[in-house]
């Protein structure tokens, strides 16, 4: 099978993603709609949390995607640094806004969900706070991309920022734990431990998560194509200016 690096060629990347995009987005829509409907309409109320437990179907997948998006950006940055493939740097740039939006969704739903339980809109709880910090990292990352004209330097600087940022995000995650005990409930979903939320809530949650992942992949394909096209337009215009 041809090595995956041949997708590093922008033209081939666009060709393949053009074929895949309709399928991935269709699947994403199906999974999202069915998961949300299943979770929203067909799950019983929780004895303690009442119907607010239904917010789980947005809060948990969004939180998961927020972290996975940053992981994906980290890997893409490493690929850019090691193999110098422009597509992976652009994919990292494309994924950042999606990750940031997911963090916003996780924060908003977390705050709304926590309001009746904790009595306040915003609770300086370690997990919610670490998402707030992650959001700041996303902002910084996107701002750095926007601030630099030369694409190659921008790709280099942002990937190094992503590496360093990941270490500090991890550090902040545990520093925040140390700084304030925490009202957040335990892991509502854990593949290894047994004490995750019981089955009736569990399966719709898995479908929702699949939906979010597919949505993320579809959006990354779309946005990376946009970045590649924008980059190619800039290159052509630069060449025109040079009067070739």
């Amino acid at each position, binding site marked *: 099978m041809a090595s995956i690096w041949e997708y590093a060629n922008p033209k081939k990347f666009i060709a393949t993603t053009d074929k895949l995009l309709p399928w991935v987005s269709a699947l994403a829509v199906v999974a999202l709609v069915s998961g949300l409907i299943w979770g929203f309409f067909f799950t019983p109320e929780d004895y303690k949390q009442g119907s607010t437990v*239904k917010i789980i179907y947005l809060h948990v997948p969004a939180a998961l995607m927020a972290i996975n998006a940053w992981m994906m950006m980290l890997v893409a940055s490493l690929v850019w640094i090691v193999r110098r493939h422009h597509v992976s740097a652009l994919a990292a740039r494309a994924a950042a806004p999606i990750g940031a*939006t997911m963090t916003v969704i996780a924060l908003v739903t977390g705050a709304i969900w926590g309001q*009746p339980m904790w009595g306040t809109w915003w609770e300086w709880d370690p997990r919610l706070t670490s998402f707030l910090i992650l959001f700041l990292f996303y902002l910084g990352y996107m701002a750095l991309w926007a601030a630099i004209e030369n694409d190659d330097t921008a790709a280099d600087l942002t990937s190094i920022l992503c590496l360093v940022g990941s270490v500090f995000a991890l550090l902040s995650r545990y520093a925040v734990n140390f700084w304030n005990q925490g009202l957040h409930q335990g892991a509502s979903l854990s593949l290894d431990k047994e004490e995750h939320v019981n089955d009736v809530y569990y399966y719709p949650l898995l479908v929702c998560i699949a939906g979010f992942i597919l949505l993320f992949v579809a959006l990354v394909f779309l946005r990376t194509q946009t970045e590649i096209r*924008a980059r190619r337009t800039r290159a052509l215009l630069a060449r025109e200016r040079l009067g070739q």
Partner: protein
Amino acid sequence: MMPELGKYEIEVLSSYAVSIVIIVALVAISILRSRKARALLDDVEKRSGRNG
């Protein structure tokens, strides 16, 4: 058809509404930007004579 949401109805509905609005906005913006980039690229490629 509407499930019985109890006294937290506003919370559940508002969080669903907000999240769906945000996701739809994100998808819409991405699609718009993609179309704009496509159009810009075709225009520049046509102008530079040889088609990429």
